[in-house]
């Protein structure tokens, strides 16, 4: 069984997922949300960094200037 590749444009979140450390800035995050971290450790999913320009899920969070580009990239034409 392999892993599913997921692209994320936030280095901080990726570091937090890959390295199980709790710092002053992340200790308030509830245990249930560390579920993702566990699945990364079990190699069921893999997070890879991608630049914000290449982030195709941007269309689902905000309507920006690159809306058209994003729309084409997720296969709507």
């Amino acid at each position: 069984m392999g892993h599913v590749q997921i692209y994320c444009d936030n280095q901080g979140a990726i570091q937090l997922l890959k390295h199980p450390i709790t710092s002053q800035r992340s200790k308030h995050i509830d245990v249930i949300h560390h579920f993702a971290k566990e699945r990364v450790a079990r190699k069921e999913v893999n997070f890879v960094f991608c630049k914000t320009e290449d982030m195709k899920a941007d269309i689902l969070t905000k309507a920006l200037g690159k809306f058209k580009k994003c729309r084409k990239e997720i296969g709507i034409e």
Partner: protein
Amino acid sequence: MKAHLTAKFYVRDLGPATYFLGMELSCDQEARSLKLTQKKLTGELISRYGLADARTCSVPLAAREKLRKEGEPLDTMRFPYSECVGSLLYLSVCTRPNIGQAVGALARYMAAPTVAHWEAALGVVRYLVGIVDYGLTFGGSNETLVGYCDADYAGDLDSRRSTTGYVFLMFGGAVSWSSRLQPTVAVSTVEAEYLSAGQVVKEALWFRKLGVDLGSTWDMFKSTATTKEQFSC
């Protein structure tokens, strides 16, 4: 397969699928692509609000026009807000992930819409005027499955909660997507992205299980992937 089914059940063969659950399917054998559209439903929606000749917008909901709870209450007897947003919601779930964020934002005010919300809803309909024949196209790429996750930090002005957005692409077309307000307030962009990563992992695990269930069919998909192996179940 067909013979096996007809032996057990009464089956009528209507040929290749062209219409399914209100979605039009069109297959391009030469380009090896499949397109899902909802032209009929979109056309009906546009004409219902008398916007057929309206000027189109380039985006469904401009980022600078943030929606708020407060405002002049809308007379819902005259302006069917929930009906309009409901129709848009159906479109965004079926073949138009591009309006997912806008419709999600509008649906938050279903209980007490204001005049500004109604105008924004009509703005989304106007956006559709220019792209009636657009739909999901599969076959543009060889990647079997790849996910993208993002978050909009503190996008909701009333609660300051963030929005999770993710999309899974298969052969260049979106197969699963979501745009949802997060349940709790995130204190940093990292936390917002981290919470959205949690959501996307749940969906990815479901896809992984589906891959196992499909078994040999899935291997066939996999062998067609020429690029770096993104999804290997």
